[in-house]
Each structure stands twice: as C-alpha cells, then as structure tokens.
C-alpha cells in the first residue's frame, strides 16, 4: 500500500516527481514501485530502517543508478534517460565528498563551469554568504570543521540552482550535539535559497523535526508521506506507527484497539499493572508497564519518580487516541 499525499500544488509543476520507480539488485526488489512528489521549496525527509532502499532511491533520482522501470521529472521536465551530469540536481553525501585539492571557493564554483567567469565569481560569493562562509573562501577543505565542511558541500550543491537538492544522511558523520544544530542550519539555508530538498536519514527524530513532510520507507516502498504530525499521530500502518515512536495499544469499545503515544497515557500507583522498566529521559520518566495477561503499555510522566520497578500500578489514557492501523 502506498499513500501519497500529493504535495500542495497551485498550478506549479513539482520540483521533483517520481512515478513507479523500480530497481532490482542482487535478485531483490530494492525499489518496489516508489512514487514521490516534492513541491518547490519543500523539504521532505525520507526515513526508514537500514536497507529499506532510501539511499538507492536517492541515487536513482540523481541519475547515478538506473531505474528498471518508472519515471523521474524535475520541474516538469522528464529526465528519466538523462545522464547524471545533465540532470542538474544537487547532491550532498554523508562524507561531503569535497574536492580536497581545491579551495572552498573553487569547490563551490565547480558546478558553475558553464557560466562566464565574472558571473561565476559573483554566484560563488553569493552562495558562500548564504551559508555564512564568505570568510573561509580561500581555505582548503581539510582546514575546516565538520560543520563548516557540511555547509560547503551544501553551498556547492546549491550553487548551480538545481530544482531539487538530495541529501544522503548528511549528518551521519557528525556528533549528536552538532547534528541538531547543523540540521536546523541546513533547513534554514534551504528555506532561504527556496530550493526543494529530499533528506535521507535513519534517525526518526531528525526526520520528524526537520521535514515539512516525512516519507517513511520500508522494503523498497514508501508507506506514508505526510506532514510530521500526521505520520506521528495518524500513521497509516502499524510499521509506520512503531518505527516513528513506541506506543500503547489499548482495546477499544468498538472491538478494535486504540493507539496511544506515551504522552497520551498516565500511570498511577495501585492497580492490576506492574512496572517493568523505568527510563530517565531528562524532562520526564518513561514507564513500561505490564498487565497480568502480558499486555504492555508505555507512558511518559513528569520529572518526579513516584514508582519503581515491581510496583503495582494502573494506566489510563488522557487523550482519545486513534484507532490502531
């Protein structure tokens, strides 16, 4: 099943539109009919477990990998058979792939080869200003910090003004503190340049916090593509629900079950449930509790810790929740 909430379109062609992309590698359908549309200026995060095909999808979109079937269009132009060097997409790799023998400015100018010299210089300068690295233009990549290298890679990809930038796990090599900061930096740079982007990540928090829409992928298919709040609160499948965050499934009056995220549950002392695990999350505690018949539920509670492992307790929903997919 593939739910594609088409990008909001007001008569403008999508920056990127892919239909029915298939790719078979080593006897396995790595991409099994992928549809994806990205509106101009939109940032779609593509998230899924490792091996789900998200990096392959990016390579197909960039033209580095052929599709066995399907089509790719950029701003309304069909590029399915166009080689990578003529597609004009931006691409940022996890290792940044900066050209080590070229200065920062020459790296950024690399994709502007077709422009006259003066215009090339002006565009490079403008691009370095967008990523706030104008003062480092004469440095070599190895003289920069990890975050600065990331911004150079982004500036290089954005300089030729592609209709879409593809980012393949761009923050994978950065440490956690830097990741969040750079993540927001990248989002605001993309917004400033008005470029549409697809950002691949295996980190669900990153996917939810950075994306205008989140595409959840598994086994070569996009299972759901929708705004972060929608995929989180109204997942289209059990896989999407469980991949993005842990939840409790409580029997509902209608005979089905209701899905509740941890913040929608409350735990209180005394009752038929037993506390099995207590995790300290900083601003809250997360309780995993179990009933006599083996059902588990998860609830987040404020900073006090009224219960410990083994205590008897009761759980109750504080929000209506949604019918479990």
């Amino acid at each position: 099943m593939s739910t594609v909430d088409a990008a909001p379109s007001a008569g403008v062609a999508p920056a990127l539109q892919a239909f029915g992309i298939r790719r078979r590698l080593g006897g396995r359908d790595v991409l099994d009919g992928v549809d994806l549309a990205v509106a101009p200026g939109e940032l779609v995060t593509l998230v899924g477990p490792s091996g789900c095909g998200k990096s392959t999808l990016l390579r197909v979109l960039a033209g580095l990998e052929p599709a066995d079937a399907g089509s790719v269009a950029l701003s309304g132009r069909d590029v399915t058979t166009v080689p990578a060097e003529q597609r004009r997409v931006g691409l940022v790799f996890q290792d940044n792939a900066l050209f080590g023998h070229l200065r920062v400015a020459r790296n950024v100018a690399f994709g502007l080869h077709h422009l006259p010299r003066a215009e090339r210089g002006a565009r490079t300068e403008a691009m370095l200003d967008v990523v706030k690295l104008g003062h480092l233009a004469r440095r070599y990549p190895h003289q920069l910090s990890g975050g600065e290298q990331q911004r150079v890679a982004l500036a290089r990809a954005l300089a030729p003004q592609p209709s879409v930038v593809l980012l393949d796990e761009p923050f994978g090599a950065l440490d956690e503190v830097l990741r969040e900061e750079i993540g927001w930096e990248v989002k605001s740079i993309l917004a400033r340049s008005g470029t549409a982007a697809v950002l691949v990540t295996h980190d669900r928090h990153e996917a939810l916090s950075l994306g205008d829409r989140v595409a959840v992928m598994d086994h070569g298919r996009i299972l759901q593509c929708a705004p972060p709040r929608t995929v989180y609160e109204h997942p289209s499948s059990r896989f999407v629900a469980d991949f993005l965050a842990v939840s409790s499934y409580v029997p509902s009056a209608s005979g089905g079950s209701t899905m509740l995220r941890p913040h929608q549950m409350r735990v209180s002392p005394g009752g038929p449930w037993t506390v099995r695990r207590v995790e300290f999350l900083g601003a809250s505690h997360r309780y995993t509790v179990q009933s006599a018949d083996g059902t588990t539920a998860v609830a987040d509670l404020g900073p006090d810790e009224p219960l410990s492992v083994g205590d008897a307790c009761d759980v109750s929903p504080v929000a209506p929740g949604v019918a479990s997919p």
Partner: protein
Amino acid sequence: MFAHADPRVRPGSLIAWIVIAGTVALVASPVAVLAWSLADPSTEVWAELWRTRLPSMIVETVVLVAAVVAGSVALGASLAWLVAAHDFAGRRAIGWLLVAPLAIPGYVGGFVWLDALSDVVGARGVRSLWLCALVLVLSLYPYVYLFARAAFADQGADTVAAARSLGAGPLGVFLRVALPAARPAIAAGAALVAMEVLTDIGTVRLFNVSTLADGVMRTWFGTGDAGAASELATALTGAALLLVAADRLLRRGARRSRGASEATMPRRRLSPAESAVALAVSLGVLTVALGVPLARLVGWSAETIRAGRAVTVSGGIAHHVASTVVLAGSAAVVCMASGALLALAVARRGRIAHALGRVSTVGYAMPGPVVAVGAVVALAAVDRRGWLPDGYFLVGSAAGLVFALVVRFFAVSYQGVEASLEKVAPTMLESARVLGAGRVRTAVAIELPSARYGVLAAAALLSVDLVKELPITLLLRPFGIDTLSTWVWQATSESLWAQAAVPSLVMVATGMVAVGVLLVALERGAEVVS
C-alpha cells in the same frame, strides 16, 4: 512510463576500451613475441646449452637470488621495525637516509667495494658470489625497508596494546604480531628485490657470477646468436614467472590491519644505552651502503677531472648527461602519459578492464635482457615489413630503445597511478558528475589532482629505474650514443674504476634527488589519504 535506458552508460566508454586494448597490445607485444618463439624451440641450441653452461647458470642464479632476498629481508625488515616502532635521537633523519642507498646501483657499489677489498683480500678472492650478494643486498634492501616500514606504521595501536595486555613482550609483539601482519608487504618488497637480481647484469659481471641474465648478454654479444640468446631469455622468463607466482601466494590474505579511526603504531622510547646501540647499527649500515661508496666516488671524480680524463670515445660528460636526459626523459614522459591514460580508462570499469590492465605490467616481471631481446624481435618484424619510410628502421633507433624502456617500466607508472586513483572516494567522482562534469573534466580536474602524490611517487621511482637501467640500453642504443650507465659499464669491464666514478656520481646524485621526491610524495600521500 517505462524507461530502461541506463544513464550510467556514457559516450566515452568506447574510447576507453580502445585505449585499454591498444595500450595493452603495444606494451605486451615484445613478451608475446618471445612466447611465440617458445612454441618453436631449437633443440640443437638447447642441447648445446644444457651440455655446457646452463646447469651452472641456473644454480648460480638461484643461489644468488635466494641469498640477496634473505639478506635484504633480514636487514630491511629489522631496520624498518627499529624506525617504525621505536623512538630515539635522530630517528627521523635516519629513517629517511636508510632509503638513500636505493640511488646507488649495485654495479656502482660493486666496483667501489671490489677496489676497496682487493687491497685486503687480493683481486681473485674478492670475485665471489657471496660478496656479490652482499653488495646487492646493500643497494636493494631499501625496497623491503620501505614496504615493511609502511606496513609496521600502519598497524593499529589497539592491536599492539591487545598483544601487550595478553603478555607479549616487545620481541613477542614483533615476532608474533607485527611481522606476520607485515608479511604481504615484506613479500612485495622481496619480490622487487628478486626481480632486480634476476635483471642485474652489471654487478654479476664485476664479481664473475654467471647468471642467466649474464648468459643472455654474453650470448648476444659473444656469438651474436639471437636464437640462443632468446632461448636463454625464455629460461630467464620462466624464473621470473615463478617469482610472480610465489609473490601472489605470499600476498594472499593481504588486508589492512588498522581500523579506520584507530591510532597508528605507538613508538617505544629507547633508553640512552639502547639508543646508542640503535644509532651505531643504523649509522654502520649507512656508512657501508652510502658513506664509503660516496666518498670513493667523490675522490676518484676529483682525480679524473683534474687529470682531464673524464671522457669516452663518444664524448665528455656533457654528451652522456644529454643522452641520458633525452632517452630516460622521453621514456619517462611516454611511460607516465600512457600509464596515466590507461589507469584512467581502467579505473572503475570492472574486472575485465582490470585484468587487461594487469597484462600491460608483464614487462616489469621480465628481466631487462629479456625485454630487450623481445623488443628487438618485435621491432625487426616491423622493419622487415617496410611499414616505415625508406631508410628508417626501428631496430637501433632511439625510438626503438624508448619503446623497449617503456615496455620494461610501464608497470611502475601504471600501477602507481592506478593505486592512487583507486583511493579517490567514489562519492567525489559522483559529486563531480552531478555538478555537470563529463568524463574528461572529471579526470583532469578531480581524479588526477586527487592522485597527484601517487603520480609524483611513480614518476620519481621511474626516473631512478630509468637512469640506472643497463641491459636494454646496452643492447638497443643507437650507434655512437652513450649514456651514463653504459659509460660505467665500459669503464668497469676494463677494470678502470676511477674512470667510472664521474658518471656514477652524476647518476647517484640524480637518484638521490628522485628518492627525496619519492619520500616526500609518499609521506604527503599518506596524509592526504588518512
């Protein structure tokens, strides 16, 4: 809409395959021609050879190769361990200087020691296989040293720490961890040493050792019997192929032992007493391998120049330097250009292309006299067909000589460039493509500059090899043209040591510069990669 076109297939592909096929066919032709002649062996020649000289030639060749390899491995690997795993005053300088003997050809070190020792033991006793082996070890151990040192330095700090925590002492770490892990690298160095011994004709002639290579040269010049010479060349080729097989076998299971983020080998600080011993040993080796030959050469050179005797029939030093520069220079340029072109065409083009590329390196596994004989046979075939304008012949021309030199040393440039191209991150090339660069621009603007230290190292190694090259130049040089190495050859074959000093000194100085460039390139290249 369904589209099955592969956007990866690019218009440059056909050109690349033409480059690969053409280069490989040209470079491998002399060896192919020899293999052809093998199909039709002349039995009388073989019977004659077998009755007379062949058995003793084989024995002397095997003993000499074994002795030089054993000595070079022992000396090279232990010096490498000393420099890579220990810290003492002067370690850095000594680490560099220990490579310098590479610039002194065996046949130069040979006549220096021949002269020095004949005062002590008498000229007759000096001319022995064992002294010949010793002299060759002193000029060839740097191959093992270079490879082993890089392999030791590359071993992970964690591996060593783990071995120590399991109770291994310094010697235990060396024998049980470091040495086995460096085995493939040491084998690679040893293979180069063995190859150099097989191809040597200058040193063995000085010490009256009759090896197969010497046999090819004597047969060629003595009897002028091309048939017998090429039969002997075939036997020599057999020995070389055995070596290549042994090298493959020893290098099996070669892999990087250090994790990507792991620190490199820690160096143990030596106590003052230990430092003194380390210094004494390494300075001793340097004195014998470098100091004595240099001092002798400088002394003799001053003498001959003062006496105005620094000339040969072909002319003065200027003539020899000029012809060396022109011949070695054009061979180096052709070699580097075609080697880089082939490496670029082969890079990331799959297994068939790589296998074909490897065929182009057969010349390096062939001793010089073999390549020379093969080239003459191949070039003569072209001459007979009269494809060239009237009056022009390839045999005996400078072009013919350059061709044979390129065939012999093609592997140095091709493999050097190829190895560093392989290290260029694929994402870098894909980034260039996505940014609109075609195959040619990617090669010129990204691939070659990224591989620049590998290219530089290959060029340096190539010039060391070309300047001291002897057998091919001797056999194929145009009439009236003499290089530095043939001058040394002529003077030493008449036992005129002092006469050989000036060209030797120029050769050694050139070699030293090239070795310096090589070391800088290797060091920078290692930094760039890590």
